């Protein structure tokens, strides 16, 4: 019951969130310009009209109904082509980065905890995690890129393509960049959780029974930390999506984030007489639904796994 309630709540919020974004995307954006007699840009005005807003909603649905398509991206590709091409590209890097970040983060967290027992080494464990979580990740990205180019220049490292989206290099680099945050976030969660558990009675009991230190750590404590780790899953994936936009733009990696931002920000150019319409509003809406759907799925997965873990634990104590 609790599980269904949670899932229903997530789905409803997903719908509201998507609608909220679509309302902003479909907002009418015709602007009147003030110009000098020679047509030089002076200022721009904007008046919101509710009727127009409604009209753009209607237009959106009639367009899809009549054309059975989202429209053309350019004269060669339809928006569907772009979606089909870009989404798997981004999905793969997000999924792999999440998975690898998760695994490495788990190890790093356990190492951090082990190191934190002696205060001399804690700076390498928890200290490094803190550092990498605090430092903005684009700093690491830029440093890595410049570092790779420098190493190639002096001939210590093979050539790595750091810009583009068609080579294996790009794929791997994108995964590494995206992995930074989940890795350190999870290691922080794990080591904090271990510290919270270390004084509990069940550990003392297990110790007094003579169970080895490692076994307690990896079997008992880790098992109890899973729920905490999984509750953080949706925060992590949300942050990764944020990062995906920046990293794809930065790398020229033509995935979903790249196209989405090109559709949703009208660009830095203003033309007198031109509207500020999002030229590809339909594409923006399609991507919005897909991104938020991804987060919804993560929410549901974390709800279900927490539910199962909880039930298992209840079953053990009962």
């Amino acid at each position, binding site marked *: 019951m609790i599980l269904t309630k949670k899932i229903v*709540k997530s789905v409803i*919020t*997903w719908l*509201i*969130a*998507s609608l*909220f*974004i679509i309302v*902003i*995307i479909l*907002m009418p*954006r015709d*602007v009147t310009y003030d110009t000098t007699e020679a047509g*030089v*840009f002076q*200022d*721009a*005005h*904007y008046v*919101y009209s509710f009727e127009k807003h409604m009209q753009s909603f209607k237009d959106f649905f009639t367009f899809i109904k009549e054309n059975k398509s989202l429209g053309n991206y350019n004269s060669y590709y339809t928006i569907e082509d772009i979606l089909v091409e870009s989404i798997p590209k981004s999905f793969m890097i997000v999924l792999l980065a999440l998975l690898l970040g998760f695994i490495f983060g788990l190890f790093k967290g356990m190492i951090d905890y082990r190191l934190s027992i002696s205060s001399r080494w804690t700076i390498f464990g928890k200290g490094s995690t*803190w550092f990498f979580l*605090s*430092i*903005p990740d*684009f*700093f690491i990205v*830029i*440093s890595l*890129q*410049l570092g790779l180019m420098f190493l190639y220049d002096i001939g210590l490292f093979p050539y790595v393509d750091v*810009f583009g989206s068609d080579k294996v290099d790009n794929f791997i680099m994108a995964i590494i960049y995206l992995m930074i945050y989940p890795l350190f976030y999870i290691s922080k969660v794990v080591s904090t959780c271990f510290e919270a558990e270390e004084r509990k009675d069940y550990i003392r009991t297990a110790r007094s029974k003579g169970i080895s230190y490692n076994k307690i750590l990896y079997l008992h404590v880790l098992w109890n930390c899973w729920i905490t780790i999984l509750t953080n899953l*949706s*925060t992590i994936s*949300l*942050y990764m*999506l*944020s990062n995906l*936009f*920046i990293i794809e*733009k*930065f790398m020229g990696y033509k995935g979903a984030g790249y196209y989405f*931002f090109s559709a*949703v*920000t*009208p*660009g*830095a*150019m*203003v*033309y*007198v007489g031109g509207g*500020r319409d*999002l030229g590809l509003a339909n594409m923006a809406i399609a991507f919005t639904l897909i*991104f*938020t759907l991804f*987060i*919804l799925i993560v*929410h549901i997965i974390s709800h279900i796994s927490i539910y199962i873990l909880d039930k298992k634990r209840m079953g053990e104590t009962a």
Partner: protein
Amino acid sequence: MRNIPLVVGCIFFFFLLLFAMVGPSLPFIDSELKEEIMRKDESGIHIPPYPPGKVNWLGSDNKGRDLLSLLVIGTKETLLVVFCAGALRYLLAIPLGAGAVFSKVLLRILNGWNYLLSFIPPIFLVALFLGIPFIYFSKHLFFWFLIIIAIVEVGRVAEMIRSQIVHLSGNQFIEAAITSGTTSKGLLMRHYFPHLRPQLIQNFVSDLARVLFLMAQLAVVQIFISRDFISQLGGGYLANNTSIAYPGFLQTIMRDMWTHSWIPYSTVLFISFMIITFYLLSEGIKIWYKKKYRFLS
């Protein structure tokens, strides 16, 4: 145990304050931010950006202004903007969080907002809001920028405050204060606030780092706190950053990264330095309060 984060954080912050206060009069700083559109020497004519060297320690920007001077002088504006956005966020969050303890309606709004935002990446929401023509062309873009950045994460802060207050309410000293007839104002000022203060200060400082990080991300996607429109070939007008806060120098990062990497690199170095400073201070404040309120040690 010594409080290393606080000490290091304070030293770093001292440097930032020094830059902000007396930056323009420091000896190695060009306070006028002269634009040099051309430079001549034995090897020929050079156009900006000039690479790092004896004249420009960190190189120059695309207009030929000394990058180190720009960044040092820009410190004041960066600190100011970040502080304003942070302060606005807390000014909104404190009444919202405290109100949500007593009012069911506010609690609903707060929970709804937080849950909604757990589906939308913040940078995405900010980009959408700032793209609305009414805001995009507004003469008060700067204020809109601050308001939107403040509002986007106001829920997280308000929730933190709310849960702290709820947690405190269960304590006996609160009950004692109520039974002894303390007024609600006195209760808030003398009993709740002193306990909230450590957490508030610590979170406020780390929020400053988050604001700066968000601003830097926005700059990469061409969204700035203040800009003018510059006429371009072909009849268009390019929105051009006019602020000298750090994130603004990331405007041309996509081009500079491959050709004049010193511009984005120095900028990102300064941004990272400031972010690390805020996090160190926040961590240091946490440890300081922890030690202050510990009776056994």
